[in-house]
């Protein structure tokens, strides 16, 4: 998995690309998030448009991200979920936990 970080209207955007699976660099999200928080980010959007596959480890990384951000008093939104990722979050009932938006624009405006 690849991750890149950018700023947009005071919001930190983390763009994820590729597989969020065990053995595919699944910890990249954790380190990208730590860097963002260390840089003072308080409004964070994870753009998941480029994610092709997510296993239970990848879902665990998203959950870990949510708890880390929340514990720091920051806010996290998910944007542009591919249909299969949306299915996974629905099946695992995590769709009720995350703040999910269809587009990045909506996620950024929601803060």
């Amino acid at each position: 998995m690849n991750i890149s970080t950018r700023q947009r209207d005071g919001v930190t955007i983390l763009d994820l690309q590729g597989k969020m699976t065990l053995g595919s660099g699944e910890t990249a999200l954790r380190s990208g998030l730590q860097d963002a928080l260390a840089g003072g980010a308080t409004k964070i959007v994870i753009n998941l448009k480029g994610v092709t596959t997510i296993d239970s480890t990848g879902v665990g990384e998203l959950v870990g991200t949510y708890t880390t951000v929340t514990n720091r008093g920051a806010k996290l939104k998910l944007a542009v979920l591919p249909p299969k990722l949306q299915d996974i979050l629905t099946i695992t009932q995590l769709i009720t936990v995350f703040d999910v938006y269809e587009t990045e624009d909506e996620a950024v405006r929601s803060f």
Partner: protein
Amino acid sequence: MPLEHRFHLGIGSRFENIELVQVVLRDALERLGLDEDARHWVDIAVREAVANAIKHGNRQDPDKRVAVELGVDEDGLIIQVEDEGEGFEPGEVSNPLAPENLLKPSGRGIFYMQSFMDEVRYGARPGGGTVVTLRKRLPVPGADREPAGSEEQGEKSE
């Protein structure tokens, strides 16, 4: 119909090898006529089984192997994943949908398998270890289409 073997793969207990299983598995599933959605969900379930075998079964011991076998019988697809670990008791696994577990970062692998396959069974491997058997019914060709001329037949029977 007896079991028809499609592939047997032995891998070392390293997470990178999950990708190797995925490549072979997806090719076999495509040859069997599964559509992209079905291939994706079977792939995810098998990933979880192999990951569990490496992580919890063999505890990433490089001297221990994980075997993956795919076959077809009259009920559909059968995938078996074997490890050489200490055995496993599925009753010990907590429900990841319970409110107290929802925000735990781990513990969803077995739930994934049960969600995406028609049947998941656990057994003991001869000589030690666990065998996970995953089953998925295969689509019957043409089952989703209306039989040709069915309306005319209905009218004739009146």
